[in-house]
């Protein structure tokens, strides 16, 4: 990968005729496409009749651009070599990246711990950081299902919703504290995960994906229509804020600020929320890392690699899949409870399919199964959304392009290789080419 074989030299310098041929074909395709899109402009006239006029000048220049561009791209491709972008990165950068990689996780963790200190006065950044960490946690939760067990779940947002509504309803109706409701939210989400799992886990691959997608929608529709319980489209408002061991973080006399004798600031609560979600995300990470090294985690990964072989080894594949589903759902439920307490208001609009797709994109972009990769991907995706905010209308276009480019550069995600869970002499990273994606 790092050495360029000399033998390809001949094949890399294709003749000028072939380059011209490619360019002419591309220009022809462009001509056909643009002749209607650009060459002829139609509009409804003042009386509703069709008026049209031709713009052959623009058409000619577009075709010329495509022609010239094809030649440039062909030349670039020959210069870079057949394997594409991989070659662009010199070996020195590769070793440098490996060096950075080793210290990236601890560095990120230290940075995360210091975020509230560095950006104390920048509410926008703190809010963004909380959002990123929420998605990191969701990504890590879904990673158990998709990355480890290889079950494609398109309805993950359902468990996020179950967690959020569990906390919101228990807290507003019974006045239970956040710390009591948090485990309950996780348990309820896990329960729903199991309930979904039973009928669904007979299915494989695409069918599993479609049914989980449907389940996500069912939960959302139930929330919208069960007005007496959930408030329907109006959502649940007035959800209590979390407390620090029973001490509220507000401006009252028994608030934390008053007790510590410091001046109250709304930022206290934001900082508290930040550390809360950081702790929850790190707990998710710790549990997942430990589970991977336990027999259940190895069975998940084995299931992703080859389900038939698992059965031949006496592994109960149904219960193994169910535990993966339930574990992922539980983390989703925790994240949902946090979301509810942070927002103070939830409605079904927060739990659309787009959320499931976003979390799944984070897992896929990060490299399925890689904890660090998922964290990086969440940072890239959620941070990227904000970064491109200045581009307004073109935001999604640029963002989509960036995603496509990353997936071309790294088809198996940012961190594609797999770390073994146990080793005799030396842990060697396993190339992503060998690791299966799983198909339900």
């Amino acid at each position, binding site marked *: 990968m790092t050495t360029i074989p000399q033998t390809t030299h001949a094949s890399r310098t294709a003749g000028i005729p072939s380059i011209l041929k490619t360019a002419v074909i591309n220009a022809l395709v462009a001509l056909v496409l643009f002749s209607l899109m650009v060459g002829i402009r139609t509009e409804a006239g003042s009386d509703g009749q069709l008026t049209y006029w031709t713009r052959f000048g623009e058409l000619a220049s577009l075709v010329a651009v495509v022609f010239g561009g094809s030649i440039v791209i062909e030349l670039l491709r020959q210069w870079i070599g057949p394997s594409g972008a991989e070659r662009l990165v010199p070996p020195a950068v590769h070793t440098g990246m490996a060096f950075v990689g080793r210290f990236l996780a601890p560095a990120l963790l230290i940075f995360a711990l210091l975020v509230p200190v560095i950006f104390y006065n920048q509410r926008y950044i703190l809010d963004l950081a909380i959002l990123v960490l929420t998605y990191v946690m969701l990504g890590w939760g879904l990673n158990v299902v998709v990355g480890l067990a290889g079950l494609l779940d398109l309805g993950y947002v359902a468990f996020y919703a179950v967690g959020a509504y569990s906390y919101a309803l228990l807290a507003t109706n019974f006045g239970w504290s956040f710390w009591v409701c948090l485990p309950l939210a996780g348990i309820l989400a896990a329960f729903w995960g199991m309930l979904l799992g039973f009928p669904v886990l007979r299915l494989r691959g695409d069918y599993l994906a479609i049914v989980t997608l449907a389940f996500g929608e069912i939960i959302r529709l139930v929330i919208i229509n069960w007005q007496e319980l959930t408030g329907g489209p109006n959502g649940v408002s007035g959800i209590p804020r979390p407390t620090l061991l029973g001490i509220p973080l507000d401006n009252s006399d028994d608030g934390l600020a008053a007790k510590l004798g410091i001046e109250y600031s709304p930022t206290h609560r934001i900082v508290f929320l930040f550390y809360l979600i950081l702790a929850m995300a790190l707990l998710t990470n710790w549990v997942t890392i430990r589970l991977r090294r336990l027999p259940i985690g190895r069975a998940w*990964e084995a299931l992703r690699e080859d389900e038939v072989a*698992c059965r*031949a080894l006496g592994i109960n594949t149904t219960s193994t899949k169910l535990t993966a589903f339930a574990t992922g759902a539980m983390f989703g439920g925790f994240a949902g409870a946090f979301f509810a307490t942070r927002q103070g208001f939830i409605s079904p609009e927060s739990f659309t399919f787009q959320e499931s797709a976003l979390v799944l994109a984070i897992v896929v972009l990060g490299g399925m199964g890689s904890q660090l990769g998922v964290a990086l991907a969440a940072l890239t995706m959620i941070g990227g959304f904000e970064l491109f905010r200045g581009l307004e209308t073109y935001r999604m276009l640029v963002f989509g392009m960036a995603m496509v480019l990353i997936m071309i550069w790294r088809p198996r995600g940012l961190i594609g290789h797999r770390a073994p869970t146990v080793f*005799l002499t030396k842990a060697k990273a396993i190339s992503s080419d060998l690791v299966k994606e799983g198909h339900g």
Partner: protein
Amino acid sequence: MSGESILKVDKLTMRFGGIVAVHELSFAAERRKITALIGPNGAGKTTVFNCITGFYKPSGGTIRLTHDDGRQIALERLNDFRIAKQAKVARTFQNIRLFPGMTALENLMVAQHNALMRASGFTFLGLIGVPTYRSAEASAIALATEWLRRVNLLDRADDAAGNLAYGDQRRLEIARAMCTEPALLCLDEPAAGLNARESAALSELLLSIRNELGTSILLIEHDMSVVMEISDHIVVMDHGMKIAQGSPREVRDDPKVIAAYLGTDEEEAIAVMESGS
């Protein structure tokens, strides 16, 4: 003989729609012996295997497994993973089915899943890291290491199974099946694709499994040199029915076998059979 047999297949029938793949097949596999199931392509050997190991539910007939302690298990009533878990029947596959993205050692650890699950208190005790689980894991690694040594893959323990050479993958799959500590080991064409030297090493490995560990082996094989060398008992199938059985010598000289197994050209058949002896 019935007291000595670990597996008794009685009138086993398997139909796929209108096609009868196996028709009233009866045979027995003896304890601590190597029984080979041979026959031409499409004779129904793998179907018999899939019935025994629970991947198919037989249309008729019974399959009885008798453990050392006299416990009898009706395999046709158990389904898929329970046969490996409760009846202690392990199998390998005609087209190797390892976990390619996991290391050789991890493959052998997955094979000890059920024992480790119990030791980890169904994950809960393992999650908090109780010492009993740690010692169970250490002994699981020791067993895996022992098997890696036996199949001569100790230096590849930390390599991905998908990166191993073909012959190594075959041996690793046998080691993985043995890590489940089975009473009956079913091997589906273990010598397929191996060269002469690798086949000889395989024969040695299977003989050592039988002699040292006393595991009963049921074997499907096309490589006559392996079958004739290691089998104690051979069952010959054709068109889903048993056409002959007996010791390697008896089977080799049976004209029915020669005709069915290797076509009608008897001279060629004899030549091939003798090359394997």
